[in-house]
């Protein structure tokens, strides 16, 4: 059974067809790239999958269940996590609490346990804290655990967003330009990091990225969008030599690396 199955997905804003008849199937363990010029509709696809936007048409199935139109927090609890193109951390609280906050739906104590600090509260808080630290450790952020998230360097903030997404225990991870604004060395480390978490947390990954090298390097399959529609799909090699793709990019004054 596919992890994600999107059929004829559409979203219009006023007269603008931001996403138009979009179809995509992701199998378990795949890493698929979603590319396209600025304004193509990539982030809108993520917003539709995660429930931030209600689709104008079409369906989204996740692990065989229809999740179209569900509220974002319910979709998250089913196992879809994401990062944001413009980082959206809980900036004013600690790195550790950024991760611990999203453990919430899986916490095994109730409101009274919390108010009275019962043994159940103590045990669970310790477990959650250790688990959060382990996640931070895996992303090399453990030493910043008690730092305010806002004080992290840009690259650390991007990694913290990934850590926070992983803390929801997703099956499917959506990454929206995780390497934006990074230098080549940092991009290389991000590629390794994505490979590592994919293995370790058994993820299926959908990746939006403008850095072609990164997409070509990571993805087995690439989907190219322009004006809300899919204009090409294929292996990195096929995409690199596809004239339609080249035209979409060159038409916008960009080049495919």
């Amino acid at each position, binding site marked *: 059974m596919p992890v994600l199955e999107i059929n004829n997905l559409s979203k219009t804003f006023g007269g603008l067809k931001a996403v138009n008849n979009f179809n995509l199937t992701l199998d378990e363990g795949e890493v698929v790239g979603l590319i396209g010029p600025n304004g193509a509709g990539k982030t809108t696809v993520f917003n539709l999958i995660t429930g931030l936007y209600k689709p104008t048409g079409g369906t989204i199935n996740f692990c065989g269940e229809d999740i179209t139109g569900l509220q974002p927090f319910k979709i998250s609890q089913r196992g879809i996590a994401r990062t944001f193109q413009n980082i959206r951390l809980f900036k*004013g609280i600690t790195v550790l609490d950024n991760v611990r906050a999203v453990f*919430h739906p899986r916490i095994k*104590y109730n409101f009274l346990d919390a108010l009275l600090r019962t043994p159940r509260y103590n045990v669970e808080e310790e477990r959650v804290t250790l688990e959060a630290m382990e996640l931070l450790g895996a992303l090399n952020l*453990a030493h910043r655990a008690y730092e305010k998230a806002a004080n992290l360097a840009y690259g650390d903030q991007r990694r913290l967003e990934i850590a926070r997404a992983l803390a*929801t225990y997703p099956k499917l991870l959506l990454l929206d330009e995780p390497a934006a604004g990074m230098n080549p060395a940092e991009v290389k480390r991000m590629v*390794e990091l994505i490979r590592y978490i994919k293995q370790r947390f058994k993820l299926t990954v959908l990746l939006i990225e403008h850095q072609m090298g990164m997409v070509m390097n990571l993805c087995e399959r690439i989907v190219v969008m322009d004006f809300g529609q899919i204009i090409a799909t294929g292996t990195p090699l096929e995409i690199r030599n596809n004239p339609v793709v080249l035209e979409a990019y060159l038409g916008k004054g960009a080049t495919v690396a």
Partner: protein
Amino acid sequence: MKLSRKTLILFAGAALFFALVKAMQFSGMITPYWQLVLDQALVIVIGALGLSIIYGFTGQFSLGHAAFYGLGAYTAGALDKVYGNGNMLFFFLSLLAGAAVAGLVALLIGLPILRLRSDYLGIATLGFGIIVRVGMENGNKLFPVLGGATGMSGTPQVANFDLIFILTLIVILLVRNFIFSTYGRACTSIREDEIAADVMGIDTTRYKVMAFVLGCALAGLAGGIYAHRYPFLHPASFDFLKSFDFLLIVVLGGLGSMTGTIVTAVGWVFLLEVLRVVLGQNFIDWRGVIYAVILIVSIIVRPQGIFSGREWRLLAPDHLKMATGKEQTHAGSGN
């Protein structure tokens, strides 16, 4: 249940403070007037912690906190006036009733409004404050015991410093336990970024409503205590300026800091009293202007508030001992 070391130290500190006040009472250093001020300060601590949960920790802006404070005061005061006879059981039952009514009304207001992602709560609570004020001024037409525009008296004055102090201590501990739990973290994540919280699996409507109901119930509790310590309830004591009082305390103390709210609440009540003594009638006339000036100046001087989201170490949980460094780190992720 095993109490943590910090909780025990807090208890010890509270006992010490209590003993000190008692000693000052017996030696006559605290006049009944200043005792009343101190008791009022503790009542305001309870109410302000309520708004701290709503606005400071969950980020939901409310302009009608005093209306819930008044709802609790009138509910508890009237119930005890009619049914109680200075009986302690009735005192506590009426406090519970005051908190429950305030919480219930908050639920009715919060459910439709907090579903929305925008800042309608401020407007709704502002309007609600006006409705409550009108209700208090005219309530006597339905229930003569409420006294109407001239105010209500006759509630048994059974609350004293000892009781108020213990209640305040309990509230501080419960609020601390709420804030430093997964529920508090859910609320804080909403304050920080509601959309991100939603996408990360937090039922934002539910926790906004929870915070609002809890916070308003605390205001109601504070009001109920107030009604048992101040023989005369007047609608003007629960008007917009009083809501502004609570807001000022929470903002000046620093959003997201219990410590800030507690310290500022006490400081604020005493400051107002000193101003009242020094300025006399002028103070009453210029109250609104003084508030505004204090707020503007302090926001310019220290926009993040006095405690800027920090907590006194005794209130906050311990940091984890950093033994987790041994966790295998992904080789490529270091900078």
